[in-house]
């Protein structure tokens, strides 16, 4: 058995009377791409929100590299090595693409706070090169100095992915990276995900598009009504009748 990088233990979370997560248990292996699928409202995004410190669970623990993450603030969790791509792209719309990617690179190199008030930005060529390099990988070099706010939705998503990748996170959380994308863009994203898979970064990916899931995932867990109902390799999940019942409404894949 290989290393467990993230362990979600008995996590519960309710919003008023609604139980979003109930007794959620999940283990993520290091270096694997772990897909989470499930119907709308199953608690997938809530689970990610708990992992990055956006939401505090009612009970249970989230352990990352053996360290409890509950009660830590979002920036501490990011500094520990978890980055997230949001469902609606969270970028810096008023800054240029290059600056958008330089900021997370600074966070990685300088930590949560550094008072370098009087240094010149033009002396930071190492950070700049790194940011350019990642943007090249993603295919956004043409617009290095345009404002990120003017990008198309698909490009904003790719930019956000670049912002996460430049930090070389130990664990990358992707919340529906291809939602609302045209087929062509989806394929481009799949290629990209496969490319970064080779770097051995652990990933949790939430996705509705089964084509994407079965192209990139090593392991699939199915979430329904706030708890994991099945977990296994893509082939296991494809044939699991329980999954077909809960998620696919009985239809065969």
């Amino acid at each position, binding site marked *: 058995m290989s290393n467990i990088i993230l362990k979600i233990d008995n996590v519960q979370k309710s919003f008023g009377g609604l139980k979003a997560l109930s007794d959620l248990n999940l283990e993520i292996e290091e270096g694997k791409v772990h897909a989470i699928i499930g119907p709308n409202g199953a608690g997938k995004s809530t689970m990610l929100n708990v992992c990055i410190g956006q939401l505090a669970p009612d009970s249970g623990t989230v352990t990352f590299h053996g360290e409890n993450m509950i009660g830590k603030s979002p*920036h501490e969790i*990011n500094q520990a090595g978890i980055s997230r791509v949001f469902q609606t792209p*969270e970028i*810096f719309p008023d800054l240029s693409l290059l600056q958008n990617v330089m900021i997370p690179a600074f*966070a990685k190199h300088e930590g949560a706070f*550094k*008072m370098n*008030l*009087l240094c010149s930005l033009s002396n*930071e060529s190492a950070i700049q090169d790194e940011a350019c390099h990642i943007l090249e990988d993603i295919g956004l070099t043409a617009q290095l100095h345009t404002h990120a706010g003017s990008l198309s939705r698909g490009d904003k998503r790719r930019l956000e992915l670049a912002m996460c990748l430049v930090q070389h996170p130990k664990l990358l959380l992707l919340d529906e990276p291809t939602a609302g994308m045209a087929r062509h863009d989806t394929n481009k994203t799949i290629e990209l995900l496969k490319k970064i898979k080779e770097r051995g970064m652990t990933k949790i990916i939430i996705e509705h598009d089964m084509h994407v899931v079965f192209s990139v995932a090593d392991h699939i867990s199915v979430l329904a009504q706030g708890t994991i109902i099945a977990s296994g390799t893509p082939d296991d999940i494809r044939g699991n009748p329980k999954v077909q019942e809960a998620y696919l409404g009985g239809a065969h894949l």
Partner: protein
Amino acid sequence: MKSPTIKNDMFVMLIFSAIILSMPIWLKPLGAGYPDLLQKFAIFGIFAVGYNILFGLTGYLSFGHAAFLGIGSYTAVWSFKLLTMNVFPALIFSVLLSGLFAMLIGFITLRRSGIYFSILTLAFAQMFYNLAYSVLTPITNGETGLQLARGDARIIDRLFSDAGEGLPSTNFFGLEMSGYSGFYVCAVLLIIAFFISQRIFHSPFGIKLRAIKSNQTRMKYTGYNTRPYLLTAFVISGMYAGLAGGLMAATDPLAGAERMQWTASGEVVLMTILGGVGTLIGPMLGVGIIKYFENIFSSLNDQALLQAYSFMPDWLANIMVTITSPFVGEGWHLTLGALFVLIVVFLPGGIMEGVSLIKKRFSKTQANTETGKS
């Protein structure tokens, strides 16, 4: 690489210094070349340039920066009373004390953002304003304002000479703080203040502040503890305001509580927005325009208007005077208000947006002619 280089920054600095230092010359034909007003330009310039570090970079709209102006002034006058008439120590104390207060106020108010932050800063400023009239009267001398007296201790000055006849005047190591020499002291400080602000704007720190303005949520999930960044910006702008307040007392050694009223905080907001929020030069332009209107337009009267229209036939001149007179003299607020509305509606980025629009159009036509040639 498109981002500003060090060479480019130096060039801007040189131009800026030249323009500021030559103000007595080129403002003379505009009727604004007298020392009192020049000093005001420089002092409010420092205030606005500092305010822009907070408001322009982080987007946090403080309505309480006049409090730091007041703290700076009172501190400076106390330094004149107790230690020496030299403004150097007075300004150091002004900056340090207002920085200290900024840290305390910022620590509390920066727990909130948006309108709640604005209201909290406003509340603090009004609290200081009212305290100056009531509980703190022993320090602020209430409504009369804190003034110099012949019998003040002035410990350091006494070491060198006896108290002379009449009130001593402020100086910067012997340089008089009134008149043109006072303006040049203020101008040099403004240039230093502008230089520091320019460095902050083009530092990694500055760009992180811009990122907080753009999307604070993303900043947190990108591994930044945003509160200390905001607090640093708040303290720096508070120190700038303290320096401005200290200089006000240095050029005119009297500190009154009206300096801390919310209208004074509002004025610096107007200056910054008018010139261009988040631009380096914008706030300075805003200061120039508002102070010019306040001092020059307000002194125009019907007589002056008639003179200006003297080239017209009498009947037309009379009509023109009737039309324009509500906009000058005591009506200068009307002109300023109309100008402000026009700028915010048509150029939300302030005057600097207009400048960059013109620049863009100019370079476009230039590019067109070049392609036309080839």
